[in-house]
């Protein structure tokens, strides 16, 4: 199951939709997509994992790396994820305390928004 990536602007946010499996094999593609978005000026990233079916620690590492990167630029990186299976991966690693995780993209975009 390969990764599908689609990046689009939504107001002053940039949504990166990630479908398929984010793992040690595909995580480099996600890292590139996040880097490309930041290089293109994005500071407020929303990674939409609604279509993500699998996530491993390498994928988590890329998300944490992306968050750290935009934070140094006063940006943020929030997630969309409703899958109990994948939320469990965030919970077990304590990353639910690190990421803001929205149940839907509507919810993420309706949020108070970037400061």
């Amino acid at each position, binding site marked *: 199951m390969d990764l599908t990536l689609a990046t689009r602007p939504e107001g002053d946010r940039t949504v990166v939709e990630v479908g398929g499996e984010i793992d040690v094999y595909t995580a480099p593609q996600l890292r590139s997509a996040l880097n490309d978005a930041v290089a293109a000026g994005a500071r407020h990233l929303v990674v939409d994992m609604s279509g993500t079916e699998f996530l491993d*620690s390498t994928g988590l590492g890329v998300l944490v790396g992306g968050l750290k990167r935009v934070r140094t630029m006063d940006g943020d990186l929030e997630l969309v994820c409703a899958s109990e*299976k994948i939320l469990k*991966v965030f919970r*077990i*690693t304590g*990353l639910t305390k690190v990421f803001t995780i929205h149940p839907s993209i509507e919810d993420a975009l309706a949020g108070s928004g970037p400061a």
Partner: protein
Amino acid sequence: MSVLPGADDVVLRVGGSPENVRTARLVAAAVARREGLPEDRVDEVRIAVGEAVTWAMHTVTDHVVELVLGPGEEGTGEFVVRVGGGLSPVGGAEEAAVVDPGAADGLALALLRGLADHVTIEGDTTVLTWSDVP
């Protein structure tokens, strides 16, 4: 070291490429399902075995990783996955010097500890155990 698997064990040996982590996850999920684990625990096995294999690919010297998957010793009601270099059969796992997993670090280890019921790390071998298999 060569492995003579128990009758119910499955042995998989792969080279150290990230694609092979996927092959290992696939096999682990299939064997776990065959051993009667329910789907939510099959998901645990899939993730944890992927982590252990990824880790072994970095630590095992010749980058060939071997997995032995199967029921634990007769009557224990366990599902056991050994991941590392040269491995002994799952059913007859002798107790070796055990490094406390808590002494290591990282997201991968958090997942191993959170998903498997029991984790031991013996040298370059990770042993993951799920208990109370129906």
